[in-house]
């Protein structure tokens, strides 16, 4: 039985935010009397994460994904509820807890801008009390996995975004953390750099059994890394479960393009009771429910003279777009 490494119960977070009306009148009013509103950005959420899992947090901008990650790693103090990460309450920031986690933010960096990344890496290794020999061994291993070497000796300001993110990961993983919190790690990277980063994360997870909690707006990150997703909508969890189950649920119908040997065949198929999306000469597109796709295809192949067929999966981005817009996905 795999144990839970993260347990969150009735977690809420509120922020005090002051707002003001536009214009001079609004400015003056704001100067003398501030209107401060307490906004609950995370509302009573519960979830558990098992050791070694890769979890994707999905949601629109401002849904609360990053706030959840920040609370999980101990950056911000929760307003209500309890969090246990590796047996610790994150915000207490005990050294033993901090030595087990890392946080990588796509839009924030910890590398010292004017120095080569290797300096920040060695600085981190000394902060995490790793001796020189061990640090060198880990740098060699991680730089092999990340496919960086010379870049480590070039000032950060002269590196490309992708090279910087790889160096950032190396610095963030030098202490072999057991839990990785990644907030949009592929933000701004080109397609190849994104793919390499995903490959690295997958390999790191397989090799170290590290738990990875990540947010990303690039759906490829989620679909290729996360078996389980947690959808966040307005600070509440709208779905927590397997990604493929969610995709099936949101897209219960597949489109099947069938190319018949003759137009006559296609006409017969059109009148056989299937839902037809369109028909052009001997090509016919049917809409078939996921649950009956196998039996339907068997029937079609046995009964009709078929030249070829294609099953079209709906684009994942389109489905995830639905997730970001809708509120509830649980059964």
């Amino acid at each position, binding site marked *: 039985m795999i144990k839970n490494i993260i347990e969150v119960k009735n977690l809420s977070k509120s922020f005090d935010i002051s707002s003001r009306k536009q214009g001079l009148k609004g400015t003056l009013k704001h100067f003398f009397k501030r209107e401060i509103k307490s906004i609950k950005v995370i509302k009573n959420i519960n979830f558990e994460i098992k050791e070694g899992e890769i979890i994707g947090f999905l949601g629109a901008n401002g849904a609360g994904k990053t706030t959840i990650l920040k609370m999980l790693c101990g950056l911000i103090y929760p307003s209500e509820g309890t969090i246990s990460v590796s047996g610790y309450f994150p915000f207490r920031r005990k050294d033993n807890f901090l*030595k087990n986690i890392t946080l990588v*933010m796509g*839009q924030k960096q910890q590398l010292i801008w004017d*120095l080569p990344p290797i300096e920040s890496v060695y*600085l981190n290794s*000394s902060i*995490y*009390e790793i001796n020189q020999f061990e640090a060198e061994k880990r740098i060699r291993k991680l730089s092999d996995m990340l496919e960086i070497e010379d870049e480590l000796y070039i000032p950060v300001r002269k590196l490309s975004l992708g090279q910087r993110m790889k160096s950032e990961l190396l610095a963030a993983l030098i202490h072999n953390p057991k839990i990785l919190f990644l907030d949009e790690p592929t933000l701004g990277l080109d397609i190849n750099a994104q793919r390499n980063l995903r490959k690295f994360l997958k390999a790191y997870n397989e090799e170290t059994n590290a738990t990875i909690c990540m947010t990303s707006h690039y759906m490829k990150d989620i679909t290729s890394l996360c078996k389980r997703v947690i959808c966040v909508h307005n600070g509440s969890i709208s779905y927590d479960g397997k990604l493929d189950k969610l995709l099936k649920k949101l897209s219960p119908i597949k489109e099947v393009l069938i190319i018949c040997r003759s137009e006559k065949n296609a006409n017969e198929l059109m009148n056989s009771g299937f839902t037809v999306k369109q028909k052009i000469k001997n090509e016919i597109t049917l809409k078939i429910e996921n649950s009956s796709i196998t039996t339907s295809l068997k029937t079609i192949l046995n009964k009709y003279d078929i030249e070829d067929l294609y099953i079209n999966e709906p684009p994942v981005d389109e489905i995830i777009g639905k997730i970001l817009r809708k509120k509830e996905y649980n059964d």
Partner: protein
Amino acid sequence: MINLSIHKISTLLKVQYSNMLEYRVEIALWAISGIIPFFMLNIWTNNNLNESINITNTMLSRYFISAFFVRQFSVVWVVFTFEEDSLMGKISPYLIQPLNPFFRYLAQHIAEQITRFPFALIIAFCFFIFNSEIFWFPNLFILLLSFISTFLSFLIQFLMQSIIACLCFWTEKASSIERLLFIPTLFLSGLLAPVVSFPEFVKSWIYITPFPYLIDFPANLLSGNPTNISGGVTMQILWILILFPLFKKIWSEGIKKYTAMGS
């Protein structure tokens, strides 16, 4: 354990020193901008103001060149960097490391002082070329004590500014509060005038504040002017002992308000 801590501190200093060397021109300019004591010396000697406090021209000149050195090695700007880092969410990665982010700022300051040292020496050397009669070399004990006292002065200022910096968790613009502290620091620290020149009644109040121990006391010590050495060092340590727990308290309360904005 001790070896690892020494390793941690030395790496932090080495990295920050390398970083500071990238800004050597900027640091040279900062060193030059710290020549207020020379202007004040000029005002004092041209107006024979030294006579009013029974101090010779030579000793007054030594006081101001010492004040220049003390100032060079006790300048603190942590409130500004911390405020920016905190408001922009830049301290987030450092908060989840097993090292208080203020150690990074402390190392930054010390590294900057090390970088500043040769520039300060050049400025002092130029001063002594034109004023060779003022040159003196304190004995090693006084030199060591002045060094310690200057470091304590730096620590007091660092703690005072760090406390104010932490207020940005509540006010967001803590540097404005620091401006309020700048005025007494300027006038009461001995940067513009030795504290001995103040009226007796004012002096009795000034000496219970931390300000005269920032410049006046270490500068008097280094220049060889009469000063209460044990009393001065005791007050410096006392202020550190008062400010440090205050800083820890305000930090632990303030950090709960951190919202990691900008990320």
